[in-house]
């Protein structure tokens, strides 16, 4: 296979830049692997390493700073057959830290070449997440008070299945890159090199000193034993194939006629654990069985197991425009939390409005017709009170009928839950 380097666009790095070595080594690896340009996508980051994609005749994706791994993930998940190689400097590594950690955790089949030259070359040699504390860089004293990170160590801790550390000047870099690309999972090579344009103007760093430093680092030379596991994409596809497709939205035939015409507003005021939202939905479904339109708005705090729970239902034989509630025809006041949440509504209730109120709940003054229900005495537990109240409404043919409620229950529930719910409705009817 021929070189994939683009003869029209030779590298334009500063003389002596280590990126040149990596460009050549990457090309050699691709040649050795017999890969054609259209089988490979180079995803490049920002900074001097961001020019990488332009030197190669492959597919190319160049984007925002630190995000290269995210594009590569989207590409690889959509086209698993592609060889996806990401180049990134120590700058991209730092700004995209969260993406690095997550990519390690996922173990998706990408290869990341970190072109690590210990500073931000393009913007003037400022410190990066790998700058030694003793270095003199373009960020004044700031690098002296931050600890540089060991890329491989961080990646290993995050679950990377393959990490390697290399000097850009090693003869076997092409083989190291090839080995990383061939690894079925996420592979990372931390490639140390010199930036003569910025870094070595004020700091001493040579191929020899890089080798010396690397030799003192903990080893990172390929597969990380404790992190070996299946590749993310293949696991994803395997799990996906086992998922059941959701059933299409259920339709409800209109088969009954509703006891009342016009717009009916119902407010259910309760607390967490009283199945208020379920009752609101049942009321709407009951409306649908009579061909009514329905809207349901729920209000509950972010902490779902505590506090108020309010459902606002509108039923109508015409299209429903406004979904807010002005003057409910029925209010189910089942818990103090809910009543407190909607205090202001009680003063506005018409005298034709009906409030079913649990015995222990205190109501603000209201003109509405209030019926007190002693759920405790009736042996109805808090989670059943909202449904029981719907049964009370149905028993009076108020807004919904018993057959509408029963049909709604049959639409929503199955098996034992349905039996219990129907039994409860039956009990209320008596």
């Amino acid at each position, binding site marked *: 296979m021929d070189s994939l380097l683009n003869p029209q666009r030779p590298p334009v790095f500063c003389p002596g830049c280590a990126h040149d070595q990596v460009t050549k080594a990457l090309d050699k690896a691709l040649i050795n692997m017999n890969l054609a340009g259209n089988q490979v996508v180079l995803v490049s980051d920002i900074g001097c390493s961001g020019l990488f994609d332009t030197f190669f005749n492959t597919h190319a994706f160049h984007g925002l700073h630190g995000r290269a791994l995210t594009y590569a993930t989207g590409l690889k998940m*959509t086209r698993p057959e*592609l060889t996806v190689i990401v180049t990134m400097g120590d700058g991209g590594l730092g700004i995209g830290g969260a993406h690095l950690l997550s990519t390690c955790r996922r173990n998706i089949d990408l290869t990341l070449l970190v072109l690590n030259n210990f500073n931000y070359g393009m913007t003037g040699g400022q410190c990066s997440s790998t700058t030694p504390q003793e270095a003199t860089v373009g960020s004044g004293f700031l690098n002296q008070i931050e600890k540089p990170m060991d890329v491989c160590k961080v990646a290993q801790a995050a679950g990377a299945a393959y990490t390697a550390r290399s000097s850009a000047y090693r003869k076997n870099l092409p083989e190291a890159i090839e080995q990383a690309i061939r690894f079925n999972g996420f592979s990372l090579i931390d490639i140390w090199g010199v930036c003569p344009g910025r870094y070595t103007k004020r700091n001493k760093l040579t191929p020899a000193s890089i080798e010396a430093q690397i030799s003192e680092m903990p080893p990172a030379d390929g597969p990380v034993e404790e992190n070996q596991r299946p590749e993310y994409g293949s696991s994803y596809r395997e799990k996906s194939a086992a998922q059941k497709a959701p059933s299409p939205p259920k339709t409800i035939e209109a088969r009954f006629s509703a006891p009342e015409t016009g717009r009916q507003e119902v407010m259910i005021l309760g607390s967490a654990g009283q199945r208020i939202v379920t009752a609101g939905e049942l009321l709407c479904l009951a409306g649908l069985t009579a061909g009514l339109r329905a809207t349901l708005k729920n209000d509950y705090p972010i902490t779902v197991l505590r506090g108020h729970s309010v459902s606002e239902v509108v039923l109508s034989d015409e299209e429903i425009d406004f979904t807010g509630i002005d003057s409910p025809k029925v209010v189910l006041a089942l818990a103090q939390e809910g009543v407190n949440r909607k205090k202001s509504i009680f003063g506005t209730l018409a005298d034709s409005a009906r409030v079913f109120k649990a015995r222990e709940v205190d109501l603000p003054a209201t003109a509405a017709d209030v019926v007190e229900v002693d759920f405790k005495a009736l042996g109805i537990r808090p989670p059943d009170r909202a449904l029981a109240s719907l049964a009370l409404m149905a028993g009076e043919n108020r807004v919904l009928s018993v057959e509408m409620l029963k049909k709604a229950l049959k639409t929503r529930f199955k098996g034992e839950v349905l039996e219990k719910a129907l039994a409860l409705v039956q009990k209320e009817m008596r």
Partner: protein
Amino acid sequence: MALCFMEGNEAVAWGAKIAGCRFFAGYPITPATTIYNAMLAFLPPEGGVCLQGEDEIASMGFCLGASMAGAKTMTATSGPGISLYSEHISFAIASEIPLVIVDVQRLGPSTGSATRGADGDVQFLRWGNSGGQPVIVLAPTDVADCVTLTVHAFNLAETYRCPVFVAANKEISMTKESIDLEKLPIPKVVNRKTAPEGEAYIPFAVSEGSRVPDFLPIGADRLVRQTSSTHGEDGYLTVDPSTIQRFQDRRQEKITAAVDDFTFFDELPAQNADILLITYGVTARAARTVVAKLQAAGEPVALLVLKTLWPVPEALIRQKTQGVKRVVVAEMNMGQYLHEIQRICCDRTVDFIGTMDGNLISPARIEEVLSNG
């Protein structure tokens, strides 16, 4: 008659499914999370992909990669997420990457209130990109719109190779509603135009008479280049001012010059109306209640509900405001789209009804303003 009962977010997912969405990535955020839930339920069994990013930036990055690999792609978030999407919105605009972005707006500013609605992102969606190039924003009023406008959003993203926003609102997205799916006017599904076979592929070249480059996915036989940097037809960096300006003009015009082709709206027209109420989103529903009532009482009031917000459908607004003495704008914010209407109707009174307290604007409030002009 057979009705379904679903919330706006489920309806958006349903629309995405109809449109042929194959990739979704997002980060959970109230009130948009149930879109992610629904996509996670339906994409994997169909061989599609649904991912949860480590953050909103990653989610958008996944989407851009997937879309460039050829998948119809969607993401969903709320205001705080749109803030984090910004750099990638700019990328999608600059580099012509088709993508549907659903913004289920919640009460801001900032993290604001997770479970309260607002339409506070309307100018943010338009201008929240670096470079200020135009975007398409559609605004649903109900669950039915959530289905149909999502299909339109995909079609527009594919046609114009750009990000398209669905500007929903917690009050639509998390409100469940009856809907007759059978009767929905589902638009015909459009796919991005691919480059003709047998020719050399120039990633950003446009054919004669078109403003939109033909697409090939990364991974195609012919090589594809994508870049967020200022580029020419070949997808390489350019510093040539005339190429740069030509690209700015083309990206601008491909959207602004086409708005008449996707000006979606509803109305309650009235002969010789003196007053026109203009609104969008969930507020359209209170507006409809009031205007229908006033019209029944013989009042000369008309209603225009905009479902295409950006680019501003100026031709429509000019036409509908002709002969009208007073224009009233109602929106769930402190006055954002108002500025667009004032700009177009600069020769007459434009009154404003707005709140940002987490409650719907009530019919009573609108009626009061319409009746006491």
